[in-house]
């Protein structure tokens, strides 16, 4: 079983490759869209590489937090607690990270929040599940 650190190193290398950077340029808190200038095409490349390199299924709505804003809007409409919805949708993220996401996403004109560390956390959980 791969340690979280080993998963991180591989995810870091994949992201560095795709964005033509060195792995040292990529930290867990590096924002894919704003710091690296990512586009949807890059997310597609990342998904394909994660799938091929780790042999895991990749749900793009989840791994790239695409469903985040929709979930929060739904919570507001239905009077649900965002913590619960996010715990259900992104169980692999730490409670602190989920709290940050809920807070940041509630701000007006929010930039895409996806960080390299979010992707690595998704992969680590998928690898653990696979055993």
């Amino acid at each position, binding site marked *: 079983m791969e340690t979280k650190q080993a998963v991180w190193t591989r995810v870091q290398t994949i992201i560095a490759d795709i*964005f*033509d950077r060195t792995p040292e340029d990529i930290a867990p808190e590096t924002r894919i869209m704003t710091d690296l*200038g990512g586009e949807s095409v890059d997310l*597609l*490349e990342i*998904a*394909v590489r994660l*799938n*091929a390199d780790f042999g895991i299924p990749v749900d793009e709505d989840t791994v790239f937090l695409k469903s985040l804003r929709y979930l929060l809007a739904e919570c507001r409409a239905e009077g649900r607690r965002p913590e619960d919805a996010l715990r259900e949708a992104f169980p692999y993220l730490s409670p602190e990270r989920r709290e940050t996401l809920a807070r940041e996403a509630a701000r007006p004109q929010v930039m895409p929040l996806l960080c390299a560390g979010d992707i690595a956390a998704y992969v680590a959980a998928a690898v653990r599940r696979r055993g």
Partner: protein
Amino acid sequence: MRVVLTGAGICSAAGHSLAGVAAFFAGNNSPFVPSETFGLPGYAVCPASSPDEDGLGSDDAAARLRAWRRRACVQRGGRFALAAALRAVSHAGFSPACPLPPETPVLAALGPMLDAAGEPGLLPLHPADAHSVGEPADDAAPGLAALWLLRWLPNTTCAALNQLLDLHGEALTVNAACASATQALGQAFRRIATGEVERLLVMAGDSRLSAHGLLGYAKARALCRRDAADASRGPRPFAPDGDGFAPGEGGAAFVLESLAAARARGAVVLAEVLGYGAGCDGGSLTAPDPSGRYAEAAVRAALKQAGLAPEAIDWIAAHGTGTPLNDPVEAALLARLFGNGPAVLALKSWLGHTSAACGALELACVLACREAGFMPPIRDAETFLRSDVRFVRTTEPFPGPVGLVESFGFGGQNAALVLRLGTPEA
């Protein structure tokens, strides 16, 4: 409207600037090497660089492309076109401080992507592979990049240039086999001449130097066979022993604009385009019409539009591939129309056959030669198919400014462009 060239860029085995190309001709070294390193032995090829290098040169344009994150989305020939285009734009006097206007259209002449073996993860692919990966087809070929297809789509290069230069005018990719570049230049000329647009960028690039690219023409028996020892001999355009073409690669690009627009911005004029003619044999899908009558019609149309008689032509950049199908037909056409008048260049003896890009690359070479004041001989020429055509046999002074570029391609594509080099008179 009178139409002029105000910028030229090149990316080729012969060099990465007009001065570099002239120095290459003066040096008289063979650029032809054995094809083995490109995946299929037995032929002579003219590479811009070894297969593991990018062949882009070492100037700002090359550095800009190397720093561009999406460069791998563009096929090798397309990258040569991009390098040439960046050079042409800066040669025309545009810069980040004074950019090409965003409405400037781009016409691109590009070949197909044929490097199947060079696509990581694509081969081998057979049904057993697809099944072993599982149900959804999008999980097949796990080594394949998500957007590998971009390299194979002809318009990716043109889209890339528009991204790099922040251009938003019409982007049109032309493929007319080996007449692509000349037809793209002709279309650009027409659009400016009729007043439809003021300025256009034309770029061309191609590389068939890959196992599958070579295989396509090897199977068609169109390549000259050379073993490793005599690969440096290259092809034999217009020679009685012409036994096929030698594939090359590279890119060239031009800024074309109305004379009025060029004058308004104080641009240096490299040449005036005087006429364009094109047509199709409508016969064989590969071999040219043996009578050459449709090729002749294209040349005559270009002369007619230029308002010139054949006697007014000083130089001809002939298509001259070195194949026994093209050269006798083209030589007979030259003898019929021009006799012993104009000096006939066969630049494929220096650059190999650069396929879709050849007309543009050869025009850039002519501009380089004119600037340097000499014409290179047809390389390694000994005897020629005919004595009633003035093939350039030894280095000679560049003749008068008016000339003709001819390109004839698979599918019977015929195109001819008449130009006057240098700054036009009032």
